[in-house]
């Protein structure tokens, strides 16, 4: 197993402009209540990572309760909306429209250059290394448009890709990328599109209604030895541990499953995936804590962390971020898994 650390010049503000993000959160807060809570169709669930049924309430956001698993310390929303309600939310809510129409266009080029181009390079390297004869890729996650554009730009002989997320038709509207098929499909229908050699699951583990169903579908869809490449947010990360419910990165419905590193490990084992890479190459933990306690001194924060944030320069912050990456303590998780027999 390997762990990857990245050294990249990128500020969270470049891809998430503060004012716009506040507006986005405001819309989310309003619509979570209006669309998801008022529908009244919330279901309780056990821990998505380790399946333990024992949890304690961690905190509440916009009327939804986050539970902390007593076994693996993952944090997750329960009770929660189902897949259909979420799909409707991502397709039709004004928050989602705002994200697609306001935030994405403004930050598109920074995202492309600093997030998705390196991600495409990483992905192609992983394929070169572990599955050089890949014949089919399926993308189940959200926000794949720039990534797939970059993949097709960097690799002229890219394997065909089917994009299946339920709002792929919206995300790829007006796009005609060579070798890319848009086919919105619920998780239950995913296996019928396979067998795939590569499954891209970016931005889905943390937001899906049923993590177990996602991993069942991944196994059923992948060919023997196939690769699952994914990213997610983990509650084990520095900024989420320090800020907890005050973190601006925790919000429903996009961040409903905040699985711990230990919980993720159990999840992968239970679904018989070999872990080839397990990294936390996040870049924003330290910046997020610094900005949060700078903006609101009342946020509870360990004395040492506060002292460090207030009294050390950017070199120390950059060293700390690298340390977090190196020891899997950043909240952004990146994984490469291989389906075993």
């Amino acid at each position: 197993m390997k762990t990857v650390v990245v050294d990249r010049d990128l500020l969270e503000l470049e891809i998430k402009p503060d004012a716009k993000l506040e507006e986005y959160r405001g819309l989310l807060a309003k619509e979570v209540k209006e669309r998801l809570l008022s529908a009244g169709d919330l279901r309780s669930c056990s821990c998505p990572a380790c399946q333990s049924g024992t949890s304690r309430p961690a905190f509440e956001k916009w009327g939804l309760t986050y539970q902390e698993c007593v076994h693996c310390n993952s944090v997750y929303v329960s009770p929660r909306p189902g897949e259909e309600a979420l799909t409707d939310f991502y397709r039709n809510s004004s928050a989602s429209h705002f994200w697609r129409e306001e935030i994405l266009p403004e930050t598109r080029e920074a995202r492309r250059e600093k997030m998705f181009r390196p991600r495409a390079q990483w992905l192609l390297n992983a394929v070169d290394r572990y599955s050089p004869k890949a014949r089919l890729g399926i993308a189940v996650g959200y926000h794949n448009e720039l990534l797939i554009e970059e993949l097709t730009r960097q690799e002229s002989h890219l394997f065909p890709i089917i994009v299946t997320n339920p709002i792929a038709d919206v995300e790829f509207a007006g796009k005609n990328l060579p070798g890319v098929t848009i086919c919105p499909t619920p998780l239950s229908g995913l296996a019928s599109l396979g067998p795939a050699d590569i499954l891209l699951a970016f931005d889905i583990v943390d937001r899906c209604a049923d993590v177990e169903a996602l991993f069942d579908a991944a196994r059923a869809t992948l060919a023997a030895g196939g690769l699952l490449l994914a990213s997610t947010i983990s509650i084990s990360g520095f900024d989420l541990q320090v800020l907890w419910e005050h973190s601006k990165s925790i919000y429903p419905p996009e961040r409903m499953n905040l699985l711990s590193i230990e919980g993720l490990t159990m999840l992968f084992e239970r679904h018989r995936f070999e872990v080839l890479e397990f990294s936390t190459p996040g870049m924003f933990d330290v910046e997020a804590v610094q900005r949060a306690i700078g903006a609101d001194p009342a946020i509870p924060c360990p004395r040492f962390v506060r002292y460090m944030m207030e009294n050390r320069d950017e070199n120390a912050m950059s060293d700390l971020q690298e340390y977090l990456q190196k020891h899997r303590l950043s909240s952004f998780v990146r994984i490469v898994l291989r389906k075993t027999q």
Partner: protein
Amino acid sequence: MKTVIIGYGYMGQIRKQVVENLPDLKLCGICDPLVLPGQIGTDCAHYEDYRDAIDDVRPDIVFVCTPNRYTPDVCIYALEQGCHVFCEKPPGRNLADIQRIIEVEQKHPDLKLMFGFNHRYHPAIVEAKALVDAGRLGRILWIRGVYGKSGGRGKEFEASWRNDPAISGGGILLDQGVHMLDLFRFFCGEFQEVLGLLSTAFWNVPVEDNAFVVLRNDQGQIAQLHSSATLWKHTFRLEIGLERGYLIVEGLLSKTGSYGREKLIIGRRPGDDEDTALGNPREEIVYFDKDLSWDYQVRELVNCIKHSLPVTDSSSLDALRVMEVIDAIYTQQQPKGPLVAASIGDRGMQ
């Protein structure tokens, strides 16, 4: 497959672990005249003479883990008795030793012979090779390696057989630098020119404790090695410059961990449309946490035996070529006079 291990020092003990890890292999005998039967920590037979071990056990595979002086005789005897052979590096004391082994190997084309260039199987090297072979970073322009250790505790190190030229055939270049030279070939293929400087800078030994080597091949790729027994901090660093980026392997997973955590740094030359500062490109650092190189390499040998495949990795040809380089460097050493690059291979087998 029945196996015996000849030589039960540091490497023999590692090989015992490997044999025990692989279900296809069964350890049936250990031979070492300097080790008592009670010290081998297993209930397999103990021998003092390698011929007795091979004759008695009739093994499928013989692991040759002896000091360099004995390596060719043990290899040759094992091959003549119809055994496949896994032989530690270096493949003897000098070019003549590996040539002798190859002569016998050629008379037994059905037998497999592999040499212990296990660094090829280290995770960071495997990853780097995959990146180079995929071609996204372009062609290799140059390669540079530093590999060294502190020698060890003074008297103990100076008295080691590794520093007795009659037994070892050479110093740190032959003992450890051989791995890096093998990696140069692994990445760049054959080199045609070599220039080397040796020194005995610190230790009271009759062999070199530092070697500086420069190689060049027909593609214009230049390789540079510093092999040292005076690196007080144990160091493994391999840098590969490519057209569209660079790779650096640093640290080496080992039993003691003294070479540091094994990592691969991947750097990319920024594209013309990127505003990243020139000269300070973004890097990814890949850390590895498990060294299975020993197991993987032996598994490869077992695979060749089981499926009658030729040994194409760490083969006798690889051993020969790297010994040609070392032979050229040792031959080149003159007390005075201008340095002239030697051609490699003109004294070796073609």
